[in-house]
């Protein structure tokens, strides 16, 4: 992955920048000691790292605005950062940029059960939003698997999903309003507590814009009353095709599970060795979870199991209580960890039309042979969001590059069959240079035009999302 050459002109302004920031912000908010900035050199795409000029960690929206205004005046790029859990390099800095982190802004500002929303500062972690309302019977629905660590700011930037978004939708469907600071330091409120924002849907385009349009410091989030209960069923099949057909039949029958997870044989085997969840030794398995009262769960599970029975499952195991449920989920939840025990891995998240699943898995298997790298597949099967985990050895020269090539081929395949490059992780730097495969120049131009409006100097998270060649003229205008 290539990053633009840092600007000497900007690097030379470091001391002036730091003293201007320190003049207006509390001393602990501005960091440039190389030991302390080390933690900000990378996010969860840790193969890529770079020390920024400095790190700013404000307490308030006004301080965010002040910092951005200074950087705008001095032409210094700003890389916003939530909790740094991006798998796509969304908060990777460049040597001529500063990191602006919202980690210190994590308060709940307003809780309104009658109207079903909370307003929070965006440094708050995803899980702790639910934590703040859970005792009263509520939850915040989007549940990315990094939810213990990831911040709402990053969820909004990447429009994060999760295993349960089949029923509840992704971040964008649960976001009612934001307070956003533009690169010029202007504080803008969009949307509110009502269900639809007025006029042009800026909220819709801000969500998922990867921190390129502004820094979101506050968010109004929809919360929901928790269901009475939830239980999964695990079903094993002796081919990917049959498992895929079963998913399709369940959906057509009108059952809407909260989650349908799919694992293929390489992933089942790795997981089994690591977590010993007692999964059947089969080609593909589904974990399907439904919600409701005991009676409602029974009604749905019965329907699902009778549909599955028509597909000759090698095993059907339904959970009868929360212990059995936990055992069924154990393997799935340890899948990434299990693969990590075997080797280093790269996790992709291309989405495909559900009907193309068997074909895509077969092609991935063939490519795995061709590249000589193992791959396991976990999959949000209800919505076509794949998660191929490619195994490689980071210590062996050339393997990372080989793995990236393999990954790129998988993502191109996703686009070819009518899908997309990324379903929930975002483009970041990781898929930036593949955007040409999904979009024509006019398509990208229409997106970049939005950034031109919000950030005319292209200083916010500039070298992300768009192919470097496509954004070069815009990024270089201040130099």
């Amino acid at each position, binding site marked *: 992955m290539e990053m633009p050459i840092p600007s000497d002109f900007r690097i030379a302004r470091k001391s002036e920048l730091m003293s201007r920031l320190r003049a207006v912000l509390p001393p602990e908010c501005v960091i440039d000691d190389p030991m302390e900035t080390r933690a900000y050199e990378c996010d969860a795409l840790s193969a890529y790292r770079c020390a920024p000029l400095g790190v700013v960690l404000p307490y308030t929206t006004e301080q965010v605005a002040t910092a951005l205004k200074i950087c705008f005046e001095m032409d210094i790029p700003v890389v916003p950062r939530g909790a740094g859990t991006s798998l796509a390099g969304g908060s990777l800095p460049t040597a001529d940029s500063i990191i602006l982190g919202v980690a210190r802004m994590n308060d709940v500002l307003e809780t309104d*059960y*009658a*109207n*079903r929303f909370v307003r929070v500062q965006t440094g708050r972690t995803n899980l702790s939003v639910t934590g703040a309302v859970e005792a009263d019977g509520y939850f915040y629905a989007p549940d990315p698997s990094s939810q213990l660590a990831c911040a709402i700011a990053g969820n909004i930037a990447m*429009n994060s*999903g999760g295993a349960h*978004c*089949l029923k509840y939708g*992704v971040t964008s469907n649960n976001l009612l309003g934001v307070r956003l600071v533009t690169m010029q330091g202007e504080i*803008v409120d969009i949307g*509110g507590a*009502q*269900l*639809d924002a*007025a*006029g*042009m*849907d*800026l909220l*819709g*385009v801000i969500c998922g814009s990867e921190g390129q349009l502004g820094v979101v410091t506050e968010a109004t989030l929809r919360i929901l*009353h928790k*269901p009475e209960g939830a239980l999964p069923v695990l079903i094993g099949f002796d081919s990917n095709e049959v498992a895929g057909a079963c998913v*399709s*039949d369940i*959906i*057509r029958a*009108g059952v*809407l599970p909260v989650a349908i997870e799919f694992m293929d044989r390489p992933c089942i085997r790795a997981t089994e060795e690591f977590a010993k969840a007692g999964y059947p030794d089969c080609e593909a398995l589904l974990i399907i979870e439904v919600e409701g*009262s005991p*009676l*409602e769960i029974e009604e*749905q599970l019965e329907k699902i199991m009778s549909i599955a029975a028509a597909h000759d499952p090698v095993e059907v195991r339904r959970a009868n209580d929360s212990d059995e449920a936990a055992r069924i989920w154990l393997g799935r939840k340890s899948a990434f960890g299990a693969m990590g025990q075997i080797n280093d891995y790269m996790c992709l998240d291309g*989405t*495909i*039309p*559900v*009907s193309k699943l068997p074909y895509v898995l077969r092609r991935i298997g063939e490519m795995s042979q061709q590249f000589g790298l193992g791959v396991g597949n976990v999959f*949000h099967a209800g*919505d*076509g*969001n794949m998660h191929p985990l490619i195994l490689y050895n980071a210590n062996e020269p050339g393997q990372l590059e080989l793995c990236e090539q393999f990954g790129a081929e998988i993502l191109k395949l996703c686009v070819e069959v*009518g899908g*997309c490059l990324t*379903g*929930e*992780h975002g*483009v970041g730097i990781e*898929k930036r240079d593949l955007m040409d495969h*999904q979009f*024509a120049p*006019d*398509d990208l131009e*229409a*997106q970049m*035009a939005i950034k*031109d*409006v*919000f950030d005319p100097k292209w200083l916010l998270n500039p070298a992300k*999302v768009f192919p470097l060649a496509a954004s070069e003229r815009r990024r270089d205008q201040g130099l």
Partner: protein
Amino acid sequence: MDYQPTSEAELSEIVKATTNPLAIVGGGTRRARPVKGDMVSTAGISGIVDYEPGALTMVARAGTPLFEIEATLAKENQQLAFEPLSLAGILGSSGHSTIGGVFAANASGSRRIQAGAARDFLLGVRFVDGAGKIVKNGGRVMKNVTGYDLVKLLAGSWGTLGILSEVSFKVLPISDVSATLSMKADDPKTAIDIMTTCMNTAFDVTGAAYDAVAGCVYIRIEGFEKSVAYRSGALQQIVSKFGAVDILEMTASRAVWTQIQNLSMLQNRDGDLWRVSVKPTDGANVVHAISPDAYVMDWSGGSIWMRVSKGMDVRGALGSIAGHATCYVGDAAMFHPEPENVRVLTDAIRRKYDPKAILNQGLMG
């Protein structure tokens, strides 16, 4: 000069060639306001392109009539779960609503409160911008964060940023069973108490509305048979403290929601037609502030459709209540004025997408 292109390419040529303002129309059923310019109808760009019932997705050209989409979905026992609002009756418009028009107006109905808005179901768009360029965004898969979400930007943009030529969207199964709890309520405060009480349960209520003309609150539950019986029983117990509860089943239940979808109770009445959007518990304050001649509340009280006397300054009357008001029939601007720092952004986006300033001029901003 009026245009009725039959393909996206033809549409693109028309927009490229002209410098005249264009009035964009799908079926014409939602045209609350006259727009000056040459009429461009998308009705000729029609037809379902792809439908995968097992993936819950459909792709259709923008001019495809809504009835055709709904009939095709119904054969597979599926539907547009956001219940597209129908304005033909109340606006007295003729013609057939198109799928492009539904999304361009982000026309969500009662189930918005549980299933999401039209914009939440829209997965991908193709459109022709004001310079005549063909642009695509999103796709036909349910999860997609590849690049900026222009899909949502186009949803509800009323043809002012581009002319939709194709849309792909998510559909959902039609529930086996629908039941509606019906209760009398004399004032909006009580009605909202009942609605928010029901929304704040685990019972997945799919509609919460108050028809103030009939003085009735309606709470809808949908799903499999046993589940609906269980949930309506449980809700009945919870709200019985507010008064007697009737349970409407299937046909009677569906009829109630069709009336709300059509705003039947506000049809054949004089006066301006407005919709006010606020958080649900502010609904009663809105009614007190405006004293409409007739109104219906949807979305648990957060969406209030009302008839008011001609020329009334509804936005002024709202005062400090947070939210916005849309004028469908009347002389006021259709859309709520934006704060200055937002208007600067939306104006600039319009100039980028419509550099000749020709698309549905004056309708939105």
